[in-house]
């Protein structure tokens, strides 16, 4: 046996007096209860939004994209803005589950399940926009690597738009596998403690017949580690490739090499904000405050202030480069961005993304739940404006003044965006009701090192002198050996 020891100076990851059974009870029992009134209200509201979204999309497809506000100057409007916004949000889950796993950040265990679920739903929402933006959506299969019907003409594998198809579908698949493989043992737990036949049948099916033998777990750990290793470059690649959609073009304001890291930082920034929005509510309603602690929220706020600052530096670098390049196209693009008719979107972005997250340097604010919640929404408003600024204000004042234009969305575009909120929250409400929102097996794994009640015992070890500590550990070791020799 190795020593399970972590200094009590570190904040516990699980508060309260917990044992393994209590952990199962706390996390699984909300699934076994009837949902509260708030759940029904939220769920029905989400379904209504979803239906409105379906109506808007149907309208757009039936009448064509002429129903949208986009024009020949601004060809990408709310649709691509929303696409990039959602895909950015979808970065936090895999970052938490993969990168933080490799960095051995214990706090990821409390939030990874919900964050990964959020990722998957956000990517589902993101995927809608390029699909319906195609207009003639029945020809959508042309993006697949198939020769077309007029001869063996293939999609352009040199094009960032096609890279996007591969990146996003791979990201969705791998995130789903990672998430579901972790869910299997927790479904087995729900199955084994199920009181009703229906629940036993359904979770038995969903648990794939998992029983948790030593070999099962050994392979599970190997799988999780390799998937984490694969997902780490993957999550960075996805938003890099999304940024290539812009960066490889020759439009002033898009044609910059800073885009990949800047987009990835922004994605992490907005993704963590969305995780905070959801978890602040989830932990309250499902009474999981002892598992998703203020320490967890604070850790995410720290990442928000870091990535927010990176994004801020990127904005300033862009401004500097447009001046330093002495290219009049670049200078004009940024002048119109800051001072043109869309000035309000630029300054909304600057305020929400650069100025306001700096308040998180104050520890008191970082650990305040109402402030965290408000801030998480402010950040995502800011990140929406960032994408709008990049897309609309780089194109609306183009090379020929005669084609300068302005763009406002029409109702089907707004309805489509609202519809993706409907899709996202419908999925999230179902997840919160039927799935364990915290990875039970992973919490049990860290419980004896990071649980509050176990950490209190560490005080005694902490106060021992080094000699005493070694002596005690050696004695325990010898005892074990003596016992083995006896047999």
């Amino acid at each position, binding site marked *: *046996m*190795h020593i399970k020891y972590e200094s009590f100076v570190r904040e516990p990851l699980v508060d309260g007096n917990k044992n*393994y*059974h209590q952990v*199962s009870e706390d996390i699984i029992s909300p699934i076994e209860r009837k949902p509260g009134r708030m759940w029904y209200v939220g769920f029905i509201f989400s379904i209504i939004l979803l239906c409105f979204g379906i109506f808007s999309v149907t309208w757009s497809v039936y009448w064509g994209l002429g129903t949208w506000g986009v024009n020949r100057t601004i060809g990408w409007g709310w649709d691509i803005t929303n696409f990039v916004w959602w895909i950015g949000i979808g970065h936090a889950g895999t970052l938490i589950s993969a990168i933080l796993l490799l960095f051995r950040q214990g706090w990821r265990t409390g939030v990874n399940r919900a964050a990964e679920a959020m990722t998957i739903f956000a990517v589902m929402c993101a995927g809608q926009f390029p699909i319906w933006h195609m207009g003639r959506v029945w020809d959508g299969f042309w993006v697949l*690597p198939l020769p077309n019907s007029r*001869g063996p*003409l*293939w999609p*352009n*594998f*040199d*094009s*960032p738009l096609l*890279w996007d198809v*591969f*990146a996003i579908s*791979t990201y969705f*698949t*791998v995130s789903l*596998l*990672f998430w579901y*493989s972790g869910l299997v*043992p927790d479904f087995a*737990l729900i*199955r*084994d*403690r199920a009181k009703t036949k*229906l629940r*036993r*049948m359904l*979770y*038995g*099916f969903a648990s*794939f*017949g*998992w*029983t*948790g*033998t*030593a*070999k099962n*777990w*050994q*392979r599970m750990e*190997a*799988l999780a580690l*390799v*998937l984490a290793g*694969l*997902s780490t*470059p*993957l999550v960075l*690649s996805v938003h890099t490739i999304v940024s290539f959609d812009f960066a490889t073009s020759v439009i002033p304001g898009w044609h910059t090499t800073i885009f990949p890291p800047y987009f990835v930082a922004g994605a992490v920034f907005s993704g963590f904000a969305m995780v905070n929005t959801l978890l602040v509510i989830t932990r309250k309603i499902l009474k999981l405050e002892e598992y998703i602690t203020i320490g967890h929220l604070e850790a995410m706020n720290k990442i928000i202030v870091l990535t927010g600052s990176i994004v801020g530096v990127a904005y300033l670098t862009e401004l500097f480069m447009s001046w330093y390049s002495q290219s009049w196209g670049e200078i004009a693009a940024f002048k119109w961005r800051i001072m043109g008719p869309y000035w309000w979107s630029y300054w909304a972005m600057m305020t929400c993304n650069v100025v306001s997250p700096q308040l998180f340097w104050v520890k008191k604010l970082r650990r305040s739940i109402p402030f965290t919640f408000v801030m998480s929404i402010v950040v995502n408003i800011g990140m929406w404006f960032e994408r709008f600024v990049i897309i609309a204000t780089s194109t609306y004042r183009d090379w020929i003044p005669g084609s300068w234009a302005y763009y406002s969305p029409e109702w089907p575009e707004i309805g489509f965006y609202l519809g993706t909120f409907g899709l996202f929250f419908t999925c999230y409400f179902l997840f919160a009701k039927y799935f364990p929102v915290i990875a039970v*097996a992973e919490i*049990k*794994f860290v419980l004896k090192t990071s649980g509050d009640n176990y950490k209190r015992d560490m005080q005694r070890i902490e106060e021992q002198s080094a000699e005493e500590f070694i002596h005690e550990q050696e004695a325990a070791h010898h005892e*074990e050996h003596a016992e*083995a020799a006896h*047999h």
Partner: protein
Amino acid sequence: MAIKKFAVAAYDDEAVLFPAVKKVRKSGYKLHDVYTPFAVHGLDTAMGLKETDLHIAGFIYGICGTSTAVGFISWIFTSDWPIVYGGKPHFALPAWVPITFELTVLFAAVGMTLTFCYLNQIMPGVKKHVFHPRQSDDLFVMAIELNDHTPEAEVVKFLKGTGAKETSVQMAEEGWWYGRWDKKEEYEALNA
């Protein structure tokens, strides 16, 4: 697969489980398996299990993805239907890096997950014997296969001596089968 008789011990602490596993291995009884609610580090080596080769499989799948992408795109763009895009050469390797990378990851992840399911013999609809309903909750459950040379009373007594919180003797199907989890199996009547 066959229905066999097992002596089952349930422990409520990993610290008790480890010496118990060692004792069973020394005793010569046939250790069927140990079921735990979460990954207990070191249990595999304590039981004498080999390290898994799953990651090697993942590497091979990844290489397959890489070569599929490079092979496929280079065949299309240099031989099947060469077109000049944006002044790039037909064999524009740097432009293929993103798709090559994505397919490497995709093949490795999907292949590994399927191999994981195959090796663990898990799939929707698969059913296996559960020795203790709390083996996924808070108990560490060890099953020992009994035969004519191992009288059950002796094994149960031995298991109690290792610090087991609960012990039992059960008939169990040792492998997996297709079935619904809400249905009782015929052999389970033997344990009632």
